[in-house]
């Protein structure tokens, strides 16, 4: 392995460890990864569970848990946006850029730590899911593939949020960006209700356009069964595409980012 690549990997691990060390000391972030998904899961199942018909699924929990898991994965990257805004504001990015370290490690380290936190959130949600009536209905291999896909989706959104953080420059800005762009996307999808009940225009968006639906359908197929062949490859392709596009944008922005 070349020295450059070895340093890139070790720098990434050093900065991922830095991000992970900070999380237990930041009650708000820790809540976002544990208490918040539990709360949303319980609320959705208890409040909407009785009212929403999900033909083809034994239980609303079977339908909804994959959806809310993918939503949580998508927002897991928010820690990266906030972390980068903070590093820029405090001048830490200047310190890192003056060190003989890999230029990319600040970004790859952050996004790598998101994977670890998303894995924690995923475990919490599966346990809570089982408590409210969810159950895997597929082979162990498919479940494992579903878990891997969830983490890949989360990783893709970490790069989206890396861009948000680098462009937003304030935590409030990052927040607005995230909630105006990504929150509606997760709702106008097949995550929480079958799109068949939506108005035509929204149904077209939710089933044919919204990549979030593709991702949710893929995870649902892998966790509880049902038709999902194309969706799985579609979800993988979307995730890789997001990483390629937003990764490139984030790296370019990082090279020139200065405190404003």
């Amino acid at each position, binding site marked *: 392995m070349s020295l450059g690549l070895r*340093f890139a990997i*070790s*720098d990434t691990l*050093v*900065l991922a460890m*830095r991000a992970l*060390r*900070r999380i237990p*000391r*930041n009650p708000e972030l820790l809540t976002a990864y544990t208490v918040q998904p539990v709360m949303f899961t319980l609320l959705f199942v208890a409040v909407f569970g009785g009212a929403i018909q999900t033909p083809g699924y034994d239980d609303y929990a079977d339908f909804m848990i994959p959806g809310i898991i993918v939503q949580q994965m998508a927002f897991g990257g928010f820690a990266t946006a906030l972390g980068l805004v903070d590093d820029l504001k*405090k*001048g*830490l990015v*200047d*310190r*890192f*850029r*003056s*060190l*003989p*370290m890999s230029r990319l*490690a600040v970004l790859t380290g952050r996004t790598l730590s998101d994977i670890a936190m998303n894995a924690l959130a995923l475990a919490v949600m599966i346990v809570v899911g089982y408590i409210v009536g969810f159950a895997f209905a597929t082979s162990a291999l498919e479940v494992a593939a579903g878990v891997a896909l969830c983490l890949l989706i989360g990783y893709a959104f970490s790069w989206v949020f890396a861009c948000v953080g680098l462009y937003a420059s304030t935590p409030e800005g990052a927040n607005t960006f995230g909630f105006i762009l990504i929150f509606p996307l997760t709702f106008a999808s097949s995550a929480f209700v079958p799109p068949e009940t939506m108005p035509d225009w929204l149904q077209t968006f939710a089933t044919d356009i919204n990549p979030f639906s593709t991702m949710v359908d893929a995870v649902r197929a892998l966790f509880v069964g049902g038709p999902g062949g194309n969706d799985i490859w579609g979800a993988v392709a979307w995730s890789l595409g997001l990483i390629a596009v937003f990764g490139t944008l984030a790296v370019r922005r990082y090279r020139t980012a*200065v*405190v*404003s």
Partner: protein
Amino acid sequence: MLDLASSNPAIEIEGLQKSYGDVQALCGIDLEVEQGTVLGLLGPNGAGKTTAVRILTTLLPPSAGSARVAGLDVVKDAAELRAQIGLAGQYAAVDEGLTGFENLEMVGRLYHLGRDSAQERARELLDRFDLDEAGDRLVSTYSGGMRRRLDLAAALVARPPVLFLDEPTTGLDPRSRLGLWEVIEARVAQGSTVLLTTQYLDEADRLADRIAVIDHGTLIAEGTSDELKERVGGERIEVRLVRPEQAQEAISALSGIACEQPSADDGVVRVPVRDQAGAIAGAVRNLDAARIDIDDIAVRRPTLDDVFLTLTGRPPEPEEVDEADPDTGEHPQEAVR
């Protein structure tokens, strides 16, 4: 590492320019800093000090001209150069969510010291900077002075031959400033070269071997502290009179010991003198003989404040700080929280 046997300057700047659209932040600066010396870079807010530091530490590319640090070009050899420099900034760039130890260990590992060496060096620096007891506490609990010390320690982790300190003591209390000065002096004694930007002239006076004054992106003076002071005039005796109406009589009584024509203003007579020895005694004798009562008398040397005021037309620490210019990267002075 830097070849200490050679006599190449540690920092060489030639025709350095930086512009942002129409705004010219640096208009062609030439400077050299000898190895093992301290250069104090002075200038009002927005003069281009921070821009210069950012270019020299590879954070910004210059628009024109060139700069070499430790013999390496800041653009072409940027990657190599970063292993030779340490940067401590006015914003105390340390991670508040980590402990002091974790901060220094992280920086050491990013300099690729290896885990064991990075940890050993972190403990050593915490000890040296009087942070050993606070080392395992989160930085968010540190005082402003402790953060600055940690920031400076982070710049020293890899023992870089060239250090850039951008307003290292801005906003610190006098005791913390003194502590930081001692640490910087110790580094220089071990052979490091330091470029220091500051708004505090006493800091430049104490630490810097040579001083460069920049204003509006242009180098307007360079030399030792004494050379600069001589440029704005030598020593003078200041006499405060009990009766201001005797000013003219006092001037005639004192013109014998003056090297230039004395002046009077608001009951204070200023007498430029060349030979300080016995000047006060002579002045007192002459005034006494002329029956002029003295309220106060003292020899006054020009300070760097006088130099600064004369050269830039502005006092060094404006009461009201200009808005930060986002393009030049200059920031208003900010108290450390």
